[in-house]
């Protein structure tokens, strides 16, 4: 405990905790409609695209990688969303192509053109997250705070519309809700959260933050509002425990957070079995 308090006296550790909690909160909220609409694969695909974009940024040697990663990932989100609505092209196949393609090209670029001396270390860091969570500056923290506020406000003001569009898109559109706009909004915000979350858990593990809390909450609670709240609680709890554990026993932070999420998921399943 004393060790933990000592760690928390460093500003970069506090930054890491703030960003970790906010990302856990927003990804869990977004995860609920994504999972229910059978869109969770979009989160997975986007995280791979974000990796590819990061590789491009690294090769071009730009100082602020966000300038490249962010627009590419958002564009991919829009394309994936439109693609999944198009019945002519197999949605899952085109998604797999984009996501594996982005991984391959990303690694190729890094391997061939990167100026770094430790390429495999760089790749591992981007894919699975690492100490980069401890290199956040106050600018990163502010971006994260603003983004989280946007997501929270969206869910507060558009809660009923999000519910309606998630539950029954045809009905929502027939009664005059602009469902396409909401889908687009959700996809763009998901892309943003994924880009931010890359620093926390790495691009391969991001979809865990989106999917696990939502699924765990759905196993226990029977209303949409309840699922949103509980998913947020599960996710923030897992992120906190994961970060503390990784500090104390020095495990990789992303993998630890995801492992705690898996344990929570297991416990909710157990609860479901016992109650039945």
């Amino acid at each position: 405990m004393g060790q933990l308090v000592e760690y928390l006296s460093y500003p970069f550790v506090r930054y890491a905790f703030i960003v970790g909690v906010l990302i856990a909160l927003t990804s869990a909220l977004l995860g609920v409609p994504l999972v229910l609409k059978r869109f969770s694969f979009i989160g997975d695909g986007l995280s791979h695209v974000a990796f590819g974009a990061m590789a491009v940024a690294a090769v071009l040697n730009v100082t602020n990688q966000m300038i490249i990663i962010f627009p590419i990932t958002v564009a991919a989100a829009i394309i994936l969303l439109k693609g999944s609505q198009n019945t002519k092209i197999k949605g899952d196949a085109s998604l797999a192509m984009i996501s594996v393609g982005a991984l391959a090209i990303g690694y190729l670029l890094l391997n061939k053109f990167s100026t770094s001396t430790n390429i495999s270390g760089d790749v591992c860091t981007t894919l699975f997250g690492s100490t980069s969570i401890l290199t956040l500056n106050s600018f990163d923290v502010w971006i994260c705070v603003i983004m989280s506020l946007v997501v929270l406000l969206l869910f507060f003001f558009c809660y009923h519309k999000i519910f309606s569009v998630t539950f029954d898109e045809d009905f929502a559109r027939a009664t005059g809700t602009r469902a396409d706009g909401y889908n687009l909004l959700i996809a763009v915000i998901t892309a943003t959260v994924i880009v931010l979350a890359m620093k926390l858990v790495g691009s391969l593990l991001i979809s865990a933050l989106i999917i696990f809390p939502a699924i765990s909450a759905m196993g226990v609670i029977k209303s949409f509002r309840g699922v949103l709240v509980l998913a947020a609680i599960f996710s923030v709890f897992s992120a906190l425990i994961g970060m503390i554990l990784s500090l104390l026993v020095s495990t990789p932070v992303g993998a630890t957070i995801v492992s705690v999420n898996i344990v929570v998921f297991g416990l909710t399943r157990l609860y479901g079995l016992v109650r039945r």
Partner: protein
Amino acid sequence: MQLQCSDVSLGYEGKVIMEHLNFTVNQGDYLYIVGENGAGKSTLMKTILGLRSPLAGTISFSEGLQQTEIGYLPQQTLVQRDFPASVGEVVMSGLLNKRGIRPYYNKEEKKRVHQIMERLEILDLKKKCYRDLSGGQQQRVLLCRALCATEKMLLLDEPVAGLDPKITAQMYELIADLNGEGITVIMISHDMNAACLYAAHILHIAHRPLFFGTKEEYLNTEIGRAFTEVARQEGERTWDS
């Protein structure tokens, strides 16, 4: 006249599935849309709702009815069958279009939801989870949501699909009662027996408009007699098995 379809062509992605469709619906009408599977019934309904645009022709609304004021009971999707939502949340979402940009529902709207749930006798289900309900209860909840969205016109896409005979009969009676209270009903159905019992008008389509008129006229046409006969025999066969 609430709804008028003039020379409408339906289809998607450039493929025409029906042409030259003409019919009108007046306030308080009870119209059955019948036809084989894949004849374009659901596409027609989605076009009326504005979910698709007609390839040609016009669909117009009058007598104060807006396109977004139609209560719609869609066929259930797989997603909904395991959706974590309380009955109250589902029904409430029917009111969404009336609320504008205000983020939450006010007292009056909650009262209206309460009344409609009472009317459909599902008030005791309000806190229950939608996915735990029986098929008949789920349809009742979706009908309730449709009623929240409208005071004028209901569009029902096979509302009794998959329900057992007793629940089916109750559902038909309920819809007939609502129609008796002045709500226009347009229903897609395979059930010719019910159509004979409840419909005022029939629209029979099979990739082209075959018939539009009152039920009595329909039963006097050759196609009407043939179709009801087939439906009756099929009905007997299902009962026997």
